Structures are given as C-alpha cells and as structure tokens.
C-alpha cells in the first residue's frame, strides 16, 4: 500500500503529528462562541418548565420587563410569530411520526427543562434575575416517564393528535427464525437495560446570532458540527433565503453529537436577534445543559440467541424499546439509534436467521437523539453479552466461541442478515492481535491464581463493527437537507503556501491537522506551509460537516483530490514557464522538480510570484489557476464499516460492589491511519465515554419526570482517576473506494468499551453464577445482585 512506505517523498499520512492549534488553545487564545462579544449584544436566559408535563394556563411577562437591564421578554406565542415549527421525521424511516415543535413551549410543556420564556438583557445575570420574575401558571398533567408505560393501553397521550405514544416501529425478519430457534441446541436469553446518559462536552452549547438589518443578513456564530445544515434550517424556519445566512463555527469545545441537532432555545436566540435587530448571545450553563442537551441511549432489549452444541450461532431474536422524550429531534430524528441497534446486532458474526423489532416511544423526559456511536454500544453489548453467556453456558472459552463465529477474514465482500454490506473486515486478525497484546493466556492464569486468594478479577472481550463514512443513506434519502458529500478548496497563495478550505469541521479531534497532513503530502509541500480553514458557510465549500466518523474518510479524500487537481494545474503552469512537458515534472519539497532526477526546477514560491505579479511574462493563452476544488462522497457502499475488538481487565470488590479498572485494550481497523496519535486519542476518549456508560453515567429521573442528578456534582462523568491505561493497536484494511483508503475512527472506542466492561464484570462474578445486564454497573446494583444471588435483582439504581 502506498501509504505504508515511510520513505516515500513528502510523507505525511501516517505521521503522529500534534495539533498545531493546541498551542493556542492551551494558552487560552482559542476563540469559542462565548469569547465573541459584539457591539449592542444582549444576553439570553430561559425560563424552563419545572414540570415534566403540564398545561400552561397563564404567563405574565410584565414583572420581568421592568427589571434592570431587560431589553425584551418573549413567550411561546410571541416566538411562534417569528419562527415556524419543525417536525423531526424522515421519509426513509417509514411510519416515524412526531409533532410540531416550537422554540418556546406553546400551551403545554412536555419535559422538565423545556424552554417556556426567554429574557434578553444587557448581562446574563440580569437576564436570569428577570427570568425569576416571569409568572407562569401550570396545570400539571400526568407524566409519562417509562417507555414501556408510555406504550401501555390507556397511557396519557403526549401529543393527542398523534393517537398514541409510539413514534416509530421497525421490524427485520429473515424468515424461519422460529424454526431456527426450535432447532437450536440451546437458547440464551437475557434482558439488557441501558441507562440514559448525555454528552457533557467541555464547552456547553453556545450561539451568537447577529441580524444586520442594513445588509439583511444573519451571521450566526455557533458551536456546531454542521454549519451548512444549520444555515438551511435557519433559512427555512425564519423565512430567509439561505444566501442571507452565514454560519460560523469558531473553536468548538467537544460535541459528541450534542451539537448536531436543532434546539428550541437556539432557534429562539436566532429569531430574537432578527426581532431586536441586534446581536443575541446564549451560552447554556451546566444546569440547563443537563435538561436541554439531547440525552442518549435509554434502551431496554429483550434478546435471544440460538446456538448449537459446538458453539455455532444460528440466530438472533431481538426486541428493542427506547424512549426519546416528547419529540423526535430535528432534522436527524430520534429513530436512528433504535434503527441502528437492530441493524448492527450480531454484526461481527456469521449467522443466518434474524428477527428484530425496534420501538421508539415518546415520553415526558428530555429529548433523546444521536450521540457518539449511535446505537453501537447497545448492539455490541447485547451481542457480546449473549455470546459470553452462551460460552459460559456451553463451558467454552469466550475466545473460542468468537473464533468459531466471527465472519472469516476472507469472506468479504458480504452482507449481514440485517442487510449491512461489508466491503472488507478483519475480525480474526484483530482477535489474534488482541490476544498477543494482552497476553490472554497469562492473564487467564493470573486470574485463576488470584481467585484462589479470593481476589475477583474479570476479563471481558467485545468484538464490534462501526458505521463510518456515510453517504446519503443516513439522511439525504429521507429528505433531509444534510449534505452527504464534502468539499475542499486548495489555493496556492502568492508566497507559495497552501490554504485549505474544507466543509468538514473541527470540534477538537484534529480534523484541521489531518487535512493539513493530507494536503501537504498530496501537494508535496511542508506540513507547516499548509493553513486550514473550516466552519464558515461563506468561506468553505458546501458540505455535511463532521459526524458519523466521516471527516477523515470523506473530507480527507476531498482534500486529497483537490490537492491532486491543483498539482496538475501547477504543473501545467510550470511546464509553460520551464518550457517542459508537464509529465516530466512533479512537485516535492515545496518545489516543482524533474520527475526522473528529482532535481528542483522552480519553487512554488517563485512560481506563485510569477503567476500573481508577472503574468505578463507567461506565454500567450496561459492563465494561471492556483486554486482547485473537489468534492467526494463514497458511492459504492452506503457506509464504510470498520471493525475491531476490545478487552477489559478489572477487579471487583465483592464487599463493596466497587470496580477497579486495571487495563483496557483496543485493536481496531479504520483502514489507512492518517495520524496515529490522533486516532489513538480518539479511541481512548471513546473508550472513556464507554466506561462512563458502563460504570458511572445515568440521567436519573423520578416518577414525576424530574431529573434528580442534573449537575456536575451528581451526574458522574468518567474522570482520569478511575481510568485504566488503554493500549491500542491497529490492523489496516484500507477501503478501496477512496485513494487514501481511510475509514472512520471516531466512535470505535465508544462502540464496544461498555460491552467489554460488562463482560469483564460478569466474568469476575462467574464463580458466583451471577450475571448483570443493566448498565451503569453501580455498586448498588452489584451489591444487590450479590446479596440476592441473581442478575435480575435491581436494587436502587
């Protein structure tokens, strides 16, 4: 493979380059939305519903309007005149329904935290002071908290006009599943529960909207992954032309999918700027983030596995139920996760019979939608949890049963029973590498000897697949105006340096760095001579942005193609200047060289000088074109699947129920690795989020629909003190669809970490014949199971 030779000229792809931007960020010189202050800017604060479900009987804004510094106070009725409502459905998710959602609640509130009124004031503190003086009368309605209860007959209807609380239901059936289960030697069955959690990015949601009445243009600075999608949304719901809207995403402090959705408070901010004809800034504080950012997961899965005596899997039978809050999120919907769960279950394995049902229920809790590794942790936990239970039931080693059932590495291309098409995966190579990396046999021996001394340690393994590089299949085919292709423009400036403008975005993961590496190598210039500009709809090509692990594979390839196009243009120009055939020339080290001798002919700086300042010296008819744009979207496969495997090693204190993580390993295959350091850190960060899901994070709701732990003191994010060392290795199977061959890596860590941890906990508990299927695995849950001797015991969450 061309990128595997480190001695190739101008090598950049594969180098572990640190992010140049990190220096400015570490020095406090980043520019986040909350760093931007504009003349005449006002601050927004929101009054949010204290009830999970209630009718608004009266709102009195007058007392707030007289408070110091207040510029305006708006409620749902006023806002409905400024911004049209939206409905989060997509046509390819057949039957998905939702109700119109407004920026501020109109007539009824449907979750605790839903914005009800908005104050605009000279300072945020004044806006908050005034918000306390808005008088809202509520008539409480019965809350609908539990997803199963939401679907029960007679459940209170969250949107009476929809007829029931079922937002979406999908079935997969390959046929003959009942027969396969009847013929199976063993049926393994378990009920898995996945708590709600949320993203908690370091920088909360932030938006600064600036309507310029003179120019009739709206400039929006926003921490978002998707500037062009937001441009479309704002135009559509504010009645503007897209050309009137510029969305700039400055530095963004993490997102994990949180900043990819349309939020009612953010829509209200933008609408208010137009009303007031002045800049309006809103930065969500931590408390409101917990009840207004999208939540994720919240699934219960009844799962059955059909297996033969020799460990061969013959079928899966799955019933997934998820609760999404009162609306399907816009414009990506809240049905994608459940859809993904049943698409991905069993994915690493060869089996024939599959039946699955996914149901998506409305509830009166905060909205749920796409968050890092959408659906993957659930699918992986269910699959790998069943496989470990099967191994235990049959008395065979967890590695042996996986080796027996993982799709052979030479079986590709192939299609899964749920219809997922795999171009080329490497499950067995990854498993082999993992066993070496962790010294599996020695670890098992250590575990056995420690058990003799009463020390309970566990090993958990989880294979996974990850959806990356999506084309139009996710959203475009369903009617969403979310670009599936991305573009890059490369320009040689007058000093011979390179400027890249690309439509994918950066939230701290290093997109900027890898695009610079790709451009530098493709052009044959120094890494330091490339400057990358992202996140500005007035500046970059049109594109989808960064989500679903697509920036490297799609944006990176567009950058490569644009660089190669610019190279060709430069060589044409150089050929005319040098009186040479362009085929005899190449670019390397920032200069045009002789292809055969690799001797320098003319530097790019000199060539640019001539092109920009002395075009009069060029031959007649030669016009220098020192800019090129290319777009890219994979067309052969709807997604570039990646694969990998993780393992966890941990110790369980059976007296306290506490878990100490000792070590974690990941072997994954994202194709060509553009920057191994950034890929590894992406994976580590993802593993940490998966560990958060496995052990710590849950949005704890009471029966009234009140979130009980909506603060950083009470909601336990994973922190460095509890994290194990995470060792990472790679198998490289490039996708043949692109020149670079890179697939995504952003979600691999999250996809399987919680499954590996849960399997390790159950492995540690195996001498006691206890197994748990609910995450997070809190000390309370573990102690309850230990005391009752059963995995089904709940205890307090």
């Amino acid at each position: 493979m061309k990128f595997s030779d480190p001695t190739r000229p101008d090598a950049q792809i594969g180098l572990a380059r640190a992010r140049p931007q990190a220096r400015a960020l570490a020095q406090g010189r980043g520019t986040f939305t909350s760093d931007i202050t504009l003349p005449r800017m006002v601050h927004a604060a929101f009054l949010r519903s204290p009830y999970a479900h209630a009718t608004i009987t009266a709102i009195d804004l007058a007392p707030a309007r007289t408070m110091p510094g207040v510029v305006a106070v708006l409620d749902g009725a006023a806002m409905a005149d400024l911004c049209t409502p939206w409905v989060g459905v997509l046509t390819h998710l057949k039957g998905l329904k939702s109700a119109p959602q407004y920026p501020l609640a109109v007539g009824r509130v449907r979750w605790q935290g839903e914005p009800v009124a908005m104050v605009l004031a000279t300072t945020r503190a004044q806006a908050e002071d005034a918000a306390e003086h808005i008088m809202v009368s509520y008539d409480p309605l019965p809350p609908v908290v539990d997803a199963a209860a939401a679907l029960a007959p007679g459940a209170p209807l969250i949107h009476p006009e929809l007829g029931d609380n079922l937002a979406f239901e999908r079935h997969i059936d390959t046929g003959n599943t009942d027969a396969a289960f009847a013929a199976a030697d063993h049926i393994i069955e378990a009920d898995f529960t996945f708590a709600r959690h949320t993203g908690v990015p370091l920088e909360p949601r932030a938006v600064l909207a600036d309507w310029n009445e003179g120019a009739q243009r709206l400039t929006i600075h926003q921490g978002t992954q998707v500037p062009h999608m937001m441009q479309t949304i704002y135009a559509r719901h504010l009645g503007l032309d897209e050309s009137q809207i510029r969305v700039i995403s400055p530095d963004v402090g993490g997102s994990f999918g949180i900043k990819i959705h349309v939020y009612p408070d953010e829509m209200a901010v933008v609408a208010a700027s137009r009303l007031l004809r002045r800049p309006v800034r809103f930065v969500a504080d931590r408390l409101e983030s917990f009840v207004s950012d999208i939540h994720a997961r919240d699934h219960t899965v009844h799962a059955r596995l059909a297996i033969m005596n020799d460990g061969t899997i013959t079928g899966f039978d799955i019933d997934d139920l998820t609760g999404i809050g009162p609306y399907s999120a816009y414009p990506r919907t809240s049905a994608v996760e459940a859809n993904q769960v049943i698409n991905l279950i069993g994915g690493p394995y060869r089996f024939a019979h599959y039946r699955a049902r996914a149901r998506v229920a409305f509830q009166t809790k905060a909205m749920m939608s796409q968050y890092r590794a959408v659906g993957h942790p659930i699918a992986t936990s269910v699959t790998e949890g069943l496989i470990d239970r099967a191994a235990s039931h049959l008395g065979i080693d967890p590695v042996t049963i996986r080796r027996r059932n993982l799709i052979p590495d030479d079986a590709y291309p192939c299609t899964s029973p749920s219809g997922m098409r795999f171009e080329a995966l490497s499950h067995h190579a990854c498993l082999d590498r993992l066993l070496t990396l962790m010294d599996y046999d020695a670890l098992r021996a250590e575990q056995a000897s420690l058990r003799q001394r009463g020390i309970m340690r566990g090993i958990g393994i989880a294979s996974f697949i990850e959806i990356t590089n999506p084309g139009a299949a996710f959203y475009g085919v369903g009617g969403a105006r979310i670009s599936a292709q991305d573009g890059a423009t490369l320009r040689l400036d007058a000093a011979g340096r390179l400027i890249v403008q690309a439509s994918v975005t950066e939230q701290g993961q290093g997109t900027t760095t890898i695009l610079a590496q790709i451009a530098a190598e493709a052009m044959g210039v120094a890494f330091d001579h490339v400057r990358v500009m992202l996140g500005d709809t007035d500046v970059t090509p049109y594109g989808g942005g960064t989500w679903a692990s697509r920036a490297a594979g799609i944006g990176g390839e567009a950058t490569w193609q644009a660089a190669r196009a610019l190279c060709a243009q430069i060589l044409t120009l150089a050929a005319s200047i040098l009186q040479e055939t362009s085929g005899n020339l190449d670019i390397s080290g920032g200069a045009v060289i002789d292809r055969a001798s690799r001797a320098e002919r003319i530097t790019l700086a000199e060539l640019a000088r001539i092109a920009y300042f002395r075009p009069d010296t060029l031959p007649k008819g030669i016009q220098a074109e020192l800019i090129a744009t290319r777009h890219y979207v994979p067309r052969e496969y709807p997604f570039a699947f990646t694969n990998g495997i993780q393992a966890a090693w941990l110790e369980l204190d059976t007296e306290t129920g506490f878990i100490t993580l000792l070590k974690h390993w990941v072997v994954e295959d994202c194709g060509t690795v553009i920057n191994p350091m950034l890929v590894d850190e992406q994976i580590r960060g993802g593993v940490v989020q998966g560990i958060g899901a496995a052990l710590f994070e849950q949005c704890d709701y009471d029966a009234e629909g009140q979130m009980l732990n909506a603060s950083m003191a009470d909601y336990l994010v994973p922190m460095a003190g509890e994290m194990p060392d995470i060792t990472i290795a790679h198998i490289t199977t490039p996708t043949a669809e692109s020149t670079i061959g890179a697939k995504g890596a952003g979600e691999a860590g999250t996809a399987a970490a919680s499954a590996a941890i849960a399997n390790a906990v159950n492995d540690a508990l195996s001498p006691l014949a206890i197994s748990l299927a609910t995450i997070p695995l809190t000390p309370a849950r573990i102690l309850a199971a230990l005391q009752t001797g059963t995995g089904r015991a709940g205890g307090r969450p």
Partner: protein
Amino acid sequence: MKAAAFDYIRPETLGAAITLLTRHGPDAKLIAGGQSLLPALNLRLSAPGLLIDIGRLAALRGITLADRTLHIGAGCTHAQVMTHPLIQRHAPLIARALADVAHPAIRARGTFGGSLANADPAAELPACALALDAVMHAQGPAGPRRIPAAEFFTALFETALAPDEVLTGVDIPIQGDTQWGFAELARRTGDYAMVGLAAVARPGTIRLGWFSVGQTAILAHRAAATLTEGGPLEAACTALADDLPAHDDPQASAAMRLHLARVLLRRVVGAWGGR
C-alpha cells in the same frame, strides 16, 4: 447560572468581621475559600446580601503545637494543613483524610475552618474532628468561647456557632500512643463519599467518626464502646445498626449504607490488629 447580586467587604481584622456580622445578621455570609459557598451562590441556592471575606485574616492562620495541643487556624487551606509537618507528625489522620477532600485545586482554596463551619454531613473533616475530640474556638461580640466537637455539629449544614460568631480555629489534643484509621467509599476520586469513617483509638477510648451517614457527621457510640471494652469487632459491627441513622439517598439505600459502614469498620479496626 450567575449568582444573584451581593455586596462584598473584606475587613482587615477579625473584630471588624464580627462587627459586620453582628450588624448585617442573617443577610450576611462569611466567605473564606468559597469552595462550597460560591457554587451555592451560582446555583442560587443561597442569595446573601453581603459576603464578608475572612480569607485573608492573619489571625485565622497558623498551625502551632503547645501543651500537647495542636492548634489549627480556621483560615488555613486544606493544602497547608495537609502538608504541614506538625499535622503529618501529630495528626496524621487529618492529613490522610484531606487527601480525599476533593481535588488539589479545591484543596488549595478551601479552608479547614470553612469545611467545619459548613457542616456538610458528607465532608471528611467534621468526622475527623469528632474522632479526635477536637475543640472549636469561636469568637463573637461577647468574646471567645470553646465548643467541643461533639456539641458542634447540630443539624444539616448547621453548627453550634451563633449567627454573629466566627470559627477561629480548632484544638486537637495530642497523645503519644494514638492509633488511627481512615477509609471512605467514593465512586470517583475526590467525590463526596457514600460512607466514610475516621477512627481514633487512644488509651481507654475509641472514637468512630462517621460521615455521609445522615444529617450530620456522627460518633458511633455503641460500636465504639464495644470496641473500647475489648469486645469483638463483629459485635461492634452489629452495634452500628443502632448508631447510624437509617439514611437513604440516590447513591445507596440505608441497608446498603449500613453494610458498607460495617465493611469499613472491619477494614479500619481490623488493620489495628488484636481483634
């Protein structure tokens, strides 16, 4: 969220602080490190009209040893106390407990007296004060007075301090042949514990100071008496059921908390040997 508006005064002397406190009454709050108060202000759980900053008062600083009594100024930060040679030598329990108080940044600002006066039932230091039989020094308009730790923590976030009194320091009696132990169970490093124990054995007395078990830090008298009388550890564990209130919270039910308390007692006292 932003704190509601408040006034702020930093008096130069303890006397001036007490005068301000007397004049403004319950509308005023003392601030030193601010590590509990500022979050409460930002959450608008508390909205005092005046903050009186005693964080820089020299009279509240200093750690001294005299007449077999260790004195810790209320204004010493956790970090200063934790690393002080006198503390490490004569009150290692406190140094050990402080290692579990939040994170270095918080320990650099939070104060010893602030934590005691805040009387958070989940905080480590009140339980240590109980176990060490500390004596609190308070000063008000009527002058100084001393309050035994056992009488200091009266209710949830409430102490025996009068509204116009300032906690100025803490005396800890030092005895040569003291055994001590400390353990807590927290989900993450630096979190408030689900349950915690500060235990001190002096000749003739054992004190078991518990935190995160109810409305205040408490001494487990029955379990301690059992141990003091030389009774078996398991009998002390049994007695804990009567000592500890039945306290439920989202992290642990009362039964689980009692179970964990017994685990800690076995581990801490068991490590002393001889039982």
